[in-house]
């Protein structure tokens, strides 16, 4: 009787991992929606609207800029 108990435990321990079944469910890939910060959007719009300022700076000769 003393031998049976550890043997049964050992057998049980051996069989449990063998019986374990791992099922992998298909992963649902959802589209990622990035909510852009409104402040970034405003800054971008302003940069675009006032882009002509850069053109003016580029067109201004270097010696005039220093004054």
């Amino acid at each position, binding site marked *: 009787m003393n031998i049976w108990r550890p043997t049964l435990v050992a057998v049980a321990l051996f069989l449990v991992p063998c019986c374990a079944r791992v099922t992998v469910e298909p992963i649902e890939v959802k589209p990622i929606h990035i909510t852009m910060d409104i*402040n970034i*959007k*405003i*800054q971008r*719009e*302003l940069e675009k*609207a*006032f882009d*002509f*300022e850069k053109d003016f700076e580029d067109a201004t000769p270097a010696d005039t800029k220093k004054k």
Partner: protein
Amino acid sequence: MNIRPARTTLMLGALALLLAASPALARSKGQVIGSLKARYPAIKAAASSGLIGETWTGYPEAVSAANLGKKVTDRGKTITVQQLLQAEGADRRELYQIIAKEQNTSAKLVAEHNGKRKLKTLASGEYYKLQSGKWIRKR
């Protein structure tokens, strides 16, 4: 009996004025930017000479009240600093409103963003008015 034709004339006159003013109110974003671009050399010259400065509100102002009556040249036309600021302010207000409508936000927020942007792009010798009301000059 004589009042009725006068009233009709007045109403027609008001309608004509409204129709004449409507294209100016309904300017496109590109048209407003074009107007700002055309005035930019005059704005830049006035800012470089210290007559006007950019502010945190997004609208340029005269650095000193005494500058308002001073003469500047805008596209070959001599105008006062006050006239230049009024025209620039009206265009900017319109642009801020257009951007605000596009982004579903307030024109005030857009204007203040531009105020911050202007501080970054400030050239040497130009003035900037802080929220505290203090004018600073970039070295």
